[in-house]
């Protein structure tokens, strides 16, 4: 069983969050400490109420991983966590970035952890052409 350094919520459109979690389990084995919230459908207020309830259940630093920075999941995450410095929201999540959550070493503080993960997410995009790095 593997756990992230802080509680994590995958807050994404449709089946993306569950898909990322399932793919990560196929690589890392059983994972705990990660929840999934589906947004981008239904009433925004209902989604935000569910997100607020999750935050209530998880005091202390938490990480919210969303997909589109301009999407409604990210906007809801930002809106509900407004003023709460111990809630980190990272948009643009992909499988490499999610796996990096479990491979991160000790960090001085929560902002350093966030910065590290964001950098890993940016670095995870690679381009090949004809089978070789482009």
């Amino acid at each position, binding site marked *: 069983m593997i756990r992230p350094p802080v509680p994590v919520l995958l807050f994404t*459109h449709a089946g993306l969050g569950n898909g990322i979690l399932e793919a990560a389990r196929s690589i890392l084995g059983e994972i705990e400490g990660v929840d999934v919230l589906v947004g*981008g*459908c*239904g*009433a*925004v*207020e*209902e989604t935000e109420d569910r997100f607020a309830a999750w935050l209530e259940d998880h005091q202390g630093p938490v990480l919210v991983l969303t997909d*589109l*920075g*301009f*999407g*409604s999941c*990210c*906007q809801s995450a*930002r*809106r509900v966590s*407004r003023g709460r410095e111990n809630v980190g929201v990272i948009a643009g999540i992909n499988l490499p970035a999610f796996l990096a959550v479990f491979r991160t070493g000790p960090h001085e503080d929560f902002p350093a952890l966030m910065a590290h993960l964001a950098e890993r997410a940016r670095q995870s995009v690679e381009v090949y052409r004809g089978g070789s790095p482009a």
Partner: protein
Amino acid sequence: VSVVATRVDGRLVHGQVVVAWVPAVRCDRLGIADDALAGDSWEKDLVESASEDTPVDVASVAEAVSWYREEGLPRRFVLLRSLASLLELVRAGAPVPEAVLGGIHHRTGARRFLAYLYLTRADIEALRELDRAGVRLIARDVPGNPAVDVNRALAEGRLEYDQLPAGTS
């Protein structure tokens, strides 16, 4: 007029709008007509940051009437949060020839017309008034999906509140 499209969408700026609608309507700017947003600088910043490369103007519904009187550029795509706001816009004198309805989701008292269009009794009354005012009403969540003729649905009696199924989104 410079307004190229008008859309009612409870989420205002979000994925479907940025990725699908903005290129489809070929707009230069987004115009959000929303009284609450116009008075909240934090929310305004949030929406502006969500629009990617398309500049956003935010105005109250009353102020947004002037967008419909502009000529030429910019090509503006107007977004409203609710049918009540659209009706207010039309009542205030905005010449709105057509409005696209999408992303009006379930809330208390709303009944399901389409998967992305839940209507309260007041919403249906607003649609009737908009229909009488000559606004062409189209339901469509994304440009790639078929449009539903709402004026026709009203005329054919398919938008009777008591006959719509209750349900959750």
